[in-house]
């Protein structure tokens, strides 16, 4: 059982929903990333997703793409991410999920990557370009190392396939809200709530919704039908000026997160 599994068990008992910010590792450096993670925990975030910058991301919109470019432009290396996450490990209770492109994992070797990530303190990994068909080995290795492989379902996924993906996934199921790339949306698809509800009835795995979520209204709408919400671009955009003023960047991210967390509260029921 991973820290993510434990988190969702706890939340289930109390009827609460998870709130998961996504931040980019090393934007603009790992010291700042470490500071942001500490604040997220203090604010009451259940868990955080740490994006590993990649040179050629296909599923990411301009905001996250630019954050990857800044981090890599500052010569961020994989080992630095692991080292920093590991050194903060004892002070952190909040589970961490790594969001990593398969090119990076392949280069380290699947098992080598899982071991390094787990030892650093990650509890699971999301590999946005590893389809269920290609994920068997990774899946087995994750099970062997008690590490979660979180898989994604999207609006273009046919129903039977969505169930197959849910079966192969562990930790939680990542429900992508929109057909498209990451980035804030004003409106979310009208049938989103129904589609999440459909799969919710058919799997025991917790379901978290991500992509496009950026406003308290989104949170209020979606929280009742899922187990957690993931917010990326909106937060990364708040943090993008950290190179100029870290405090200002943090303050604006905190402000946003506080408003989203407040919107999540009534969902306690």
């Amino acid at each position: 059982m991973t820290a993510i599994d434990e988190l969702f068990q706890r939340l289930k008992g109390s009827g609460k929903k998870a709130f998961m910010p996504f931040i980019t590792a090393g934007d603009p450096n790992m010291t700042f990333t470490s500071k942001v993670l500490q604040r997220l925990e203090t604010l009451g975030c259940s868990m955080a997703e740490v994006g590993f910058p990649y040179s050629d991301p296909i599923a990411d919109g301009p905001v996250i793409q630019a954050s990857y470019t800044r981090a890599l432009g500052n010569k961020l290396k994989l080992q630095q991410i692991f080292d920093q996450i590991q050194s903060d490990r004892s002070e952190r209770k909040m589970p961490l999920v790594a969001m990593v492109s398969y090119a990076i994992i392949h280069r380290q070797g699947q098992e080598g990557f899982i071991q390094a990530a787990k030892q650093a303190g990650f509890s699971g990994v999301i590999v946005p370009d590893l389809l269920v068909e290609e994920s068997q080995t990774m899946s087995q290795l994750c099970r062997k190392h008690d590490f979660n492989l979180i898989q994604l379902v999207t609006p273009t996924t046919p129903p039977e396939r969505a169930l197959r993906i849910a079966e192969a996934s562990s930790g939680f199921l990542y429900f992508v809200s929109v057909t498209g790339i990451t980035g804030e949306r004003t409106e979310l698809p009208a049938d989103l709530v129904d589609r999440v509800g459909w799969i919710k009835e058919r799997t025991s795995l917790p379901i978290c919704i991500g992509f496009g979520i950026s406003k308290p209204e989104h949170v209020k709408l979606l929280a009742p039908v899922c187990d957690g919400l993931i917010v990326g671009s909106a937060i990364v955009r708040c943090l993008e000026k950290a190179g100029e003023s870290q405090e200002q960047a943090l303050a604006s991210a905190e402000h946003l997160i506080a408003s989203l967390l407040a919107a999540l509260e009534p969902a306690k029921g």
Partner: protein
Amino acid sequence: MSTIDSTAPKIVDPKSPSSNPTTSASMQVPDASGRFGDFGGRYVPETLTRALEELVEEYQKARKDPDFQAELDELLHRFVGRPSPLYHAKRLSGLLGGAQIWLKREDLNHTGAHKINNTLGQALLTLRMKKTRVIAETGAGQHGVASATACAHFGLPCVVYMGAEDVRRQKPNVFSMRLMGAEVRPVESGSKTLRDAVNEAMRDWMSSVEHTHYIIGSVIGPHPFPQMVRDFQSVIGKECREQCLTSLGRLPDAIVACVGGGSNAAGMFYPFVQDTSVRLIGVEAGGRGQQSGEHASPLTYGSPGVLHGSYSYVMQDNDGQTSDVHSISAGLDYPGVGPEHSYWKDTKRVEYTSCRDDEAIESFDLLARNEGILTALETCHALAKAAQIAKTMTRDQHLVICLSGRGDKDAAELARLRGQEW
């Protein structure tokens, strides 16, 4: 300074290529999951899966549909001008004093390169899938022009992503695309070249996939693109094989083609894979030198990794980040290569080598002055290596060059590179 404890995970050394050249190359590739040996596959976000599955299905149906093949053949004949000639470059052969040199004239196709063979096929599939919009990426602009042409022909709206640096160095093609009604979107991210154009096209497709088809311009990308583009381009090799049998009474001794993503080479080589007496030579962009960042030769200097949806040789660093590459030729300035080429490299069916910028530029004159043919800078890479190889062969041997494209588009850039006035 560091608070890192000694148990901090250390990253293992990147794996060296797991080449396993014990098997010989088969033509029965890829398998159902899109694998050419270990290479290929499909590494894309889930959002694209349904469209790729639909494409596999439609393509398999089309292949078995005589009407589809007849319509494509008719277009290739009357619209493109196929078959393209196999031309004996006698003056050049005499000058080099080695093998007889033959040119497979893809430059004489409508739009001036091999790219149109693929775009017409994929545009027909777009209509069959009832999709209403086309996107494409382009480097040299030849695939962009070929896509714009196919779309104008069928009345489909077309958006072409092109790196801003390539927009600059391939101006004439940008103009042609716009004349045919395509929208050219310059890409300002990254190195502003072909790789970034593919990224942008993929991102567009992530949002538009339900009504848009992405016409990938080379044998790269997720399954089924590497197979499908190879098949559409195989008309080059099929014709060439027959033309050799007719003109020479036998197969050639060697065939040389340039390799960017690898589509003209794949289309030329594939029908000869089982003819083991024929040497097949792929030429990558050697740029300014062997140092990483100075060239675009993943098969020569790279290692297996993942880029743009498939597993193949790629230029990457120890973390798996794609490395920057350089080539004077926009169409070869790409850090990856089609998975079937990786398969042919590891099975040793095809020899891969690379040609420097200066050698390519110099070889432009070989065909211009001696044969009256202006050659695309991409193709000049094949030409330069072919000239070297021909000299090591005898006069009764035959070497074919895949003359993938014409050089008009490069005249201004060539003048600039040579410090001449334009």
